[in-house]
């Protein structure tokens, strides 16, 4: 079996387990939904939506993402299955990519369902902006998950992992969050694509750098 087939099989294993329990998806989706609802009540109806909505959207997505990352590795901790994974004769980078791809799929799915709800709650019609918004969400989610998977694996044996993960993760993903919020802000303001190009470049650069760096360093963070 080739490199990518093994990556896919690790992801398949996560999808199969998630399909039966829906633990990761439901916790992410419900959390994102709660944040959207709370912001809907908290924000002044007369306030300029450009000022707050991009931030509200990305607060919902990023915190839901942290929950999903935590859940994903808690499942690996049960029966110490992660050690079984590390005992397999595969490059540790394959394990990283497989876990990363699974988390990316779950977070993207939660975002895909939360976004229309966000549009309804804040009375936004974003249908004609979906290609640009979708691209920003995809690039930002990829950057967030690529670093998040590395730090989740790093904090798997720590007792305070639920706290440790966001403490480690957020300082590193600040560029992604800023880029995502700024680009979303420009898109919601219906500015031309040229105005978000620099933010897209930032997100692409972050994704490439951190995906490669995480892939290469995963071996060292999972060894005791």
């Amino acid at each position, binding site marked *: 079996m080739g490199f990518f087939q093994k990556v896919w099989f690790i992801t398949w294993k996560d999808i199969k*387990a998630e399909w039966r329990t829906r633990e990761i998806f439901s916790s992410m989706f419900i959390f994102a939904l709660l944040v959207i609802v709370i912001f809907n009540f908290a924000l002044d109806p007369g306030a300029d939506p450009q000022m707050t909505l991009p931030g509200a959207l990305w607060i919902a997505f990023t915190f839901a993402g942290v929950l999903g990352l935590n859940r994903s590795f808690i499942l690996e901790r049960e*029966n*110490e299955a992660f*050690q*079984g994974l590390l*005992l*397999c004769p*595969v490059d540790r980078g394959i394990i990283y990519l497989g876990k990363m791809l699974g988390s990316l799929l779950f977070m993207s799915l939660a975002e895909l369902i939360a976004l229309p709800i966000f549009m309804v709650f804040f009375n936004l019609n974003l249908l004609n902006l979906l290609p640009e918004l979708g691209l920003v969400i995809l690039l930002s989610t990829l950057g967030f998950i690529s670093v998040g998977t590395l730090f989740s694996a790093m904090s798997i044996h720590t007792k305070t992992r639920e706290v440790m993960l966001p403490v480690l993760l957020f300082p590193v993903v600040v560029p992604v969050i800023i880029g995502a919020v700024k680009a979303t802000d420009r898109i919601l303001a219906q500015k031309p694509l040229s105005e978000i190009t620099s933010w897209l470049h930032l997100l692409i650069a972050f994704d490439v750098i951190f995906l490669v760096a995480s892939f290469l360093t995963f071996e060292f963070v999972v060894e005791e």
Partner: protein
Amino acid sequence: MVYIQNLTKSFGNFKALRGINLKLEKGQFLTIFGPNGAGKTTLIKILSTLMKPTSGVIKIAGLDLREDGESVRKQIGVISHSTYLYPNLTAYENLKFYGKMYDLQNLPATIERVLEEVGLKDRMHDLVRTYSRGMQQRLSIARAILHDPAVMFLDEPYTGLDLHAAEMLRDLLQTVHTRERTVIMTTHSISQGLEVSDLVGILVRGKLVYLEPIGKIDTQDFGKTYFYWVEQAG
């Protein structure tokens, strides 16, 4: 088959393993006894590539552990008190997943064969979370022997097993032994450990203080020998 020279492992100032030397030939079964905190699990984790040693040379099936970790992992099977199984997958799916990771050919037939061996073929499509502790441990054995490893490491495999499951594990270990696999097992249970061993070792405070072939041991009185060496080293 297993060669260890001057193996040490430190965690900060604490020395978990202090100069372990060991040589096992093909088909030999070594049981290592030792009190809690002696370094048994650390030794098994290092041998199974889950932990890096601080110093020393380890060769398994002629492969250097530091340089050929991936190739070494193909040669070894590990059974621990943790089962390494995914509770939300069925027994078949768990073995299929591990089989794919090991690039096994003819996987469905291999899975059915090992499940038959551990007496779980009838329940192979049930989720692992519905299994009893004993059944999970049997499946864990199936997972460990799925790729027919030349060397096996067993870390406290009897932990948490009921009498029936322990009996089954003992029979399975006999089978493992007769198939010329080289085995290192750690356990607290003197009676269970002596039953299947060719060599017996005692590990105390990170040092292998005793290593003898089973033929040179008075198995009836081994408890006294064990406590003598634990007290000497302590």
